[in-house]
């Protein structure tokens, strides 16, 4: 449904995305994770026909996004990051306008349907300017699904919603994702974990990891984190812990708790315990914490060396790709 090969986009001298290649099939929800400025929105804008790539090929629903842009646009529903709404229109007028632009045969009926889907029936005649952020998000979503698109592209769809609405929207996306293809970007990692069949982690315009959320996690369970709690403080302990073989970094929260990141495939826990005891402080707790998707994300998207106050250990081991 979505096939992307060697996709590159330059904004002047700055390369926003660099040789991206991925694909998404029918009935799949593909998550796009990455820090701000990683190129998520750029990629989505290319896939929706908003702008052409500098190089590379992207096909959506079998059509080329550059040469057959109109065909692509007919089959794609898109919710941009800043929900594009006309503030002078009512919810109903706005959706009717979008339905007309999409040339839907029974526009009124379809507007009523999507209003029902996003639970906005009772606000149909409200001006968009009077809606809360969450409601606007839902109107934007209604607009994206109004023509029953084969491919749904959502840029941060749950941003600004309250927890109940988030669950609703996620259920809706899950429902759509059963039959259609959904590509969504998110900052919320648990969201990707819950919703997506597959996750793409992208940083500085490149894909740094691609897998199912559970396998991504499994791949990195060897490397993990150890939390150490001690009684009494020793300013030297942080440095000593960092010297333990297999320890990548140590951070101290100032109230006797140390977060230690350990190298993949090594278990330096006994060494850590000895170091603590030798330093003359009481060991209260030593706990091994598995890496969450959050940590994986941090690990993969980090590229600057940590500031010296955080760690004096050797450079981080690179995760293999």
């Amino acid at each position, binding site marked *: 449904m979505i096939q992307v090969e060697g996709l590159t986009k330059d*904004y002047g001298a700055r390369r926003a995305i660099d040789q991206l290649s991925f694909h998404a099939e029918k009935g799949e929800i593909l998550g796009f994770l990455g820090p701000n400025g990683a190129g998520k929105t750029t990629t989505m*804008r290319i896939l*929706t*026909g*908003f*702008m*052409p790539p500098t190089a590379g090929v992207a096909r959506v629903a079998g059509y080329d996004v550059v040469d057959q842009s*109109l065909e692509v*646009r*007919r089959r*794609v529903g*898109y919710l*941009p990051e*800043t929900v*594009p*709404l*006309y*503030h*002078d229109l009512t919810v109903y007028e706005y959706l009717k*306008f*979008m339905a*007309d*632009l*999409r*040339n839907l045969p029974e526009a009124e009926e379809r507007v009523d349907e999507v209003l029902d889907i996003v639970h906005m029936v009772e606000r149909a005649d409200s001006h968009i300017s009077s809606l809360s952020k969450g409601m606007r998000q839902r109107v934007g979503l209604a*607009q994206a699904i109004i023509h029953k698109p084969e491919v749904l592209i959502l840029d941060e769809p749950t941003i600004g919603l309250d927890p109940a609405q988030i669950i609703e929207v996620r259920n809706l996306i899950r429902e759509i994702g059963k039959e259609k293809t959904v590509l969504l970007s998110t900052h919320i990692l648990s969201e990707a974990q819950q919703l997506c069949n597959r996750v793409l982690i992208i940083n500085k315009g490149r894909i740094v990891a691609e897998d199912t959320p559970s396998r991504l996690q499994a791949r990195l369970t060897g490397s993990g984190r150890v939390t150490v709690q001690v009684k009494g403080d020793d300013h030297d302990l942080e440095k000593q812990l960092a010297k333990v073989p297999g320890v990548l970094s140590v951070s101290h929260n100032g109230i006797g708790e140390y977060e230690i990141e350990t190298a993949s495939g090594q278990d330096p826990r006994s060494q850590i315990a000895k170091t603590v005891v030798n330093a003359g402080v009481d060991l209260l707790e030593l706990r091994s914490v598995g890496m969450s998707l959050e940590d994986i994300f941090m690990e993969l998207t980090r590229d600057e060396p940590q500031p010296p106050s955080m760690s004096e250990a050797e450079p981080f081991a690179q995760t293999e790709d």
Partner: protein
Amino acid sequence: MRNIWIIASREYKAYFSNFIAYAFTFFMLLITGIVVYNSLVISVNSFGQYPPPDVGIVIGPLMFLLVFACPAFTMRLISEEQRLGTIELLLTAPVRDWELVVGKWLGSFLFVLTNIAITFIYPLVLHWLITPGIDQGPLVSGYLGVFLVTGAFLGMGVAVSSFFSNQVASYIVTFGLIVIFWWIFGIFAQAGGAQSAIFRHLDMGSQFYDTMFQGEISLSGVVYFLSLIVGFLTLGSVSVETRRWR
């Protein structure tokens, strides 16, 4: 065609919830009314008779005011879409770039035509006051000229608004462009020399005042205005298209 119409009718309706559009409409009609009334009163007081049965006393001031009003009617069109980000909606809908630009232009044109239609009251009043009634030749050709000039002004405005996301910038540049075509070219045309003939052809003012304003419909004048409209709408479409590449 359908897409153009959908965009045009949305735009037309949007004017009725736009305060600035109301303000310009109000002042345009008010000032035209005052000027027409004044010409009548002066004519009656000084010469003891009604003015000649010429629609020029309506169209003259109307045209002058349109120079200031048209940029205000178009400054929002594409600029606002860019500022609000709704351009992303339109450019990812199955609508061609030129359909968007033409639809925007048509919406503004229909709105200004509605305004101009209201000024039709004044020639009707003149027709009723003056025997044997108003000159119908200049009435038809004059209003046709107003439509064409307005179309060209609005074409410039739509094209310019596609370059800016700031409405004020959009107004100023459109106004400047209109002044160049409406007045500056005319000054060059008067200057004499070999190039003055070229400027006379380019000058909207003489294309309008020398023929249609006088009651004469010239094919070359109509072609001139239509090509201006097509030219600027093409420029606008190209600008929207290149916006995608930036």
